[in-house]
């Protein structure tokens, strides 16, 4: 009989190996799922995991999908490192889309190079404002930020639904719940001709670099991490707990807001009821699988994008619902959390202590 034995200190190797183990297990799990559904596992594997990589266009799509995930995840990582559990990125993303898209609609007909930067800033402000609600309630009234930020997701979804059914509905849109299409000057420029990959990618990369510098190289980032890992030590050293909570939530909110803006000001080109696509929740998985650090998040966001696109491919070629990607995403996080046991423990035969 095997049992777990605590390691003297956490294994660094396992810390970085564990996401790879989780990916491998998800892959095996995926093959089993395909088999159980009566599909040829090899065909399933090709459609799901290889098709999204077959040509330039597909790879550009992969990066396009990964961009909002990376943006949101790096912002969340700042909070998660400090044990600030912002679970409502989906709502902050929606409000960012509303603010950014609102700017685009307001400046319709005005063709100025300043529209897009204003949209980015508005998106960040919108997301940060939405995240400020749980931050204020947590610091002022000690209210649990997990539940508050989550409730705000549903409120944001209803808010955008009201806007596109009501005041912001395109009068010439055949009564569809959507706004007018944005002007070209309010759409992010395309990076590679013939693809949909747009200027959101450099924004996300800049955010990853900034996130890396902040979390790994700045003193302030260090104080936040201490606050998360050893509250008493942080208090003793005089690091403000309230400031940590504000910083964690506002960063996550602003990044999610920018991601929302780059979606409506990018591939969507308008605000619809379906702005919310679950990126805010998937980004939580990205942040964990990426080990809350910038380089990890970069790769994890690509992996998660692969799962999204694989789901679309599976719908098209295998006649499976695209929500299969959500099942795989959940599996990935389960396997990661499970594999993480080996960071702190090792397996030993019982008796041989």
């Amino acid at each position, binding site marked *: 009989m095997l049992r777990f034995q605590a390691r003297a200190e956490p294994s660094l190797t396992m810390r970085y190996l564990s996401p790879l183990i989780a990916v491998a297990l998800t892959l095996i799990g995926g093959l089993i799922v395909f088999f159980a559904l009566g599909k040829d596992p090899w065909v399933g594997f090709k459609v799901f995991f290889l098709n999204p990589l077959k040509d330039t266009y597909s790879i550009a799509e992969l990066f396009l999908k990964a961009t909002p995930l990376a943006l949101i995840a790096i912002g969340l990582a700042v909070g998660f490192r400090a044990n600030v559990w912002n679970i409502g990125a989906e709502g902050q993303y929606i409000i960012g889309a509303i603010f950014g898209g609102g700017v685009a609609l307001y400046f319709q007909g005005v063709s100025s190079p300043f529209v897009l930067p204003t949209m980015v800033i508005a998106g960040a402000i919108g997301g940060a404002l939405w995240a400020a609600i749980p931050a204020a309630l947590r610091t002022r009234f000690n209210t649990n930020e997990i539940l508050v930020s989550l409730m705000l997701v549903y409120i944001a979804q209803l808010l955008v639904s009201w806007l596109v059914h009501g005041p912001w509905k395109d009068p010439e849109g055949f009564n569809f719940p959507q706004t007018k299409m944005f002007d070209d000057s309010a759409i992010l420029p395309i990076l590679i001709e013939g693809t949909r990959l747009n200027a959101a990618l450099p924004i996300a990369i800049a955010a990853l670099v900034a996130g890396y510098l902040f979390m790994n190289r700045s003193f302030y980032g260090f104080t936040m991490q201490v606050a998360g890992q050893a509250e008493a030590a942080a208090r003793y050293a005089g690091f403000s707990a309230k400031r940590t909570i504000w910083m964690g939530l506002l960063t996550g909110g602003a990044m999610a807001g920018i991601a929302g803006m780059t979606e409506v000001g990018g591939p969507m080109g308008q605000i619809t009821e379906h702005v919310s696509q679950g990126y805010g929740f998937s980004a939580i998985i990205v942040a964990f699988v990426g080990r809350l650090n910038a380089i990890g998040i970069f790769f994890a966001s690509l992996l998660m994008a692969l799962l999204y696109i694989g789901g679309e491919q599976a719908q098209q070629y295998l006649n499976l*619902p695209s929500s299969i990607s959500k*099942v795989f995403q959940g599996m990935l996080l389960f396997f990661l959390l499970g594999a993480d046991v080996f960071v702190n423990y090792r397996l030993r035969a019982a008796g041989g202590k």
Partner: protein
Amino acid sequence: MENSILTAIIFATIVAGTPLLIVALGELIVERSGVLNLGAEGMMAVGAIAGFATAHATGSAVLGVLAAMVAGILVSAIFAYLVLTLLANQVASGLALAIFGVGLSAFVGKPYESATLPPVPPLKIPLLSDIPLIGPAIFSQQWLVYFSWLLLAGVIWFLFKTRSGLVLRVIGESPSSAHSIGYPVIRIRYLATLFGGAMAGIGGAFLSIFHTPLWVEGMVSGRGWIALALVVFATWRPLRVMAGAYLFGGVLIAQLFVQGSGTQIEIPSQFLSMLPYIATIVVLVLIARNPNTIRLNSPVSLGQPYRPDA
């Protein structure tokens, strides 16, 4: 005429509050044992589709509820294995369960999208259902509603009148003391977590088989999270869970009555639909405002991993 409106309001409030009550009572037991399972939303979604699909195939609501219960137990077992055996972070694992459950229900439920079930006739309790006003409101409900009351009584009895309930509470307060007296902490936490999963599954089935009765993706729409908030709001006490569940039931149906009442002021339906979520935030603020309320009432070891070091 006035009376019939009142009857309808009480009736609908109980219907809307019942899934919250069942799920929150399950979660209460889980949290009293010191385990924080944030995955209620996912377990409800899985229960909802398992129950719906079974009832759809067999025509039996009872079998549907049983299937939902089994499905809830199965997914909560994944969570239990992660946090109790592999000592994974409870917050992250609960979130994983929520995401996985909602995704799985969408995947499995695709063929059933917008399918309906024949409405299940209510179970009228003889004599009691003939009482004017409250008879039709309270004693002409679905059998799962009566089940939720029995569950409440059972949970109160178990927690405060039985030895096992006492052990469960001790484990939630101090697992190491319980372990040193010789109680199997991990095994009891497993049982509590699986019980929570079973109740969440049944709560989901109530929505898809009795309440609506149809299947649409995302139909749980935050009720699992609201149930979690209810447990905090109730400061981990069963009777207050019931009060909270019906309070929220009232908020959930307020929309229907405002729209049906023909008021002059036109409020967009989306704003009325926001009410339960706003109400959740408000009650969380009210209950947490005094830091002692939560500190004194929450199980001390809530969310902390525990490993008896043999």
